[in-house]
């Protein structure tokens, strides 16, 4: 069973979200991926205003509209617009079909405006995906590091948090978030470097490691290979490829009456 944590519509060929979603599913089928988690629309917007947030979330809602049996969605929010984000959380998660939150690079996740959003998301059992990177070449001004996420995790120990890209510089990211049991790591979005999955399992435990692709910027193939080609036992691979994500999503899926 393969569930992909991290998919985007941006750069997928197609004139509409429906066409893009159909293409994503077509290629996912070749890789035997059962479920996709989709967030953010087209084009990517690093610091969206409230109208753009709503527009991007509408694209995801539209893309999922014919594929609820194959895909889930996360709502794109920004701590730069606290009230608008809370409103989107109510519209898309509390009252809508989305099951998680995506936070990108508008503001670092150390900002206090995020607390109300995380608090409400946790009340809803929503999974919270925070993009993180620790770039040797320097981060964007609003780009969170794994240390920023660690601080957020300490403030919100009941929130289900995901460390996007395992911090990019994954050897450092894993060391940083290791003490926080409410943080899982997303292996996706970097080159298919040998050893990433093995170190992740060793450092944070197999149940906190998630397969995600970051398609369409990345390929399903390269990101799946990090797991399927790793020196890990088969049950561990199965956990990373899908079972762990299913377990993380189960509370909110049950709340919504979704069987998966």
């Amino acid at each position, binding site marked *: 069973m393969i569930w992909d944590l991290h998919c985007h519509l941006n*750069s*997928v*060929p197609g004139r509409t979200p429906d066409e893009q979603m159909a*293409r*994503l599913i077509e*290629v996912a089928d*070749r*890789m035997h991926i059962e479920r996709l988690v989709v967030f953010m629309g087209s084009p990517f917007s690093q610091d969206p205003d409230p109208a753009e947030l709503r527009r991007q979330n509408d694209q995801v809602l539209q893309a999922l509209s014919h594929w609820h049996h194959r895909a889930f969605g996360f709502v794109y929010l920004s701590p730069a617009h606290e009230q608008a984000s809370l409103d989107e959380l109510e519209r898309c998660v509390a009252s809508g079909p989305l099951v998680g939150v995506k936070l990108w690079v508008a503001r670092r996740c150390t900002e206090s405006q995020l607390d109300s959003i995380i608090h409400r998301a946790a009340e809803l059992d929503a999974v919270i995906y925070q993009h993180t*990177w620790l*770039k*040797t*070449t320097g981060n964007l001004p609003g780009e969170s590091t794994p240390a920023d996420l660690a601080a957020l995790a300490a403030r919100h120990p009941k929130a289900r948090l995901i460390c996007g890209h395992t911090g*990019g*510089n*994954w*050897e450092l990211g894993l060391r940083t978030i290791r003490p926080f049991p409410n943080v899982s790591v997303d292996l996706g979005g*970097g*080159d*298919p*470097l*040998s*050893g990433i999955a*093995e170190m992740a399992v060793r450092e944070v435990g197999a149940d906190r490691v998630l397969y995600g692709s970051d*398609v*369409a*910027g*990345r*390929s*399903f*193939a*390269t990101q*799946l*290979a*990090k797991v*399927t*080609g*790793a*020196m890990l036992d088969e049950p561990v691979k199965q956990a990373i490829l899908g079972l762990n994500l299913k377990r993380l999503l189960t509370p909110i899926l049950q709340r919504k009456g979704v069987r998966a």
Partner: protein
Amino acid sequence: MITDVNVWLSRWPTRRLPLDETAALVDTLNSLQITEAWCASLDGLLHRDLRAVNRRTAAECRQYPTGLLRPAGVINPALPGWQADLEDCRELQISILRLTPGWHSYDLTSPEFLQLLQAAAQYRMLVQICVRLEDPRIQHTLLQIPDVNPRPLLAPEITATGCSLMLLNALASTPLELAGQLATTAGIGFDTAMLEGLAGLERLTAALPPSRIHFGSYSPVFVPHAATLKLQESELPMPVRSAILHENSAAILPRN
């Protein structure tokens, strides 16, 4: 048959890799039905005694009698006396030269690089140029190596050498339009190791002549399975698939 044009032996400078022992790497290549792997040594990135590096590579490849491993010599034209390293490769019957200009601090406009291409052409050697070995965003702070700009390879003095050229790990940083120009105008080959994106091989074969595309895994730095899974993700006509997997590389460098 699969020829992997981008394989490495020995140790990556900043971490151990699960397959950095050659026997384990060979087992995995065999399991993926790779029948020929062009191998250079990662020692060549920082070592200055490249004759010793290349001799070890040749000896290591000979350890595996099936002919799976084909040695590639690392040459650094910025080092004094690089010509002797080249002659040594010739004596070792190495017909592939692998260059890492970023790690060796020269660019593709340097006179020594041109001289190297001229010599390689004379000896009918293939020259592989590594555009990138690691995403600059994750490099060690003491090993920040820039990507190589391949555009100078379009210069008439380069094409006039007649040297057979292949770019490795180029597709992460080289725009597809430039890659298409290099492939079409200068006849330069590209390996697939750093190809990314949804159904990436379908996009690549639409942008480049399929005859210039070569299967490459960048093993063991990259997980070898990434390269083979890309073939599953894209739907390619069988002749194109065969060309990428083996026929294109065999046309450049037939087995003796």
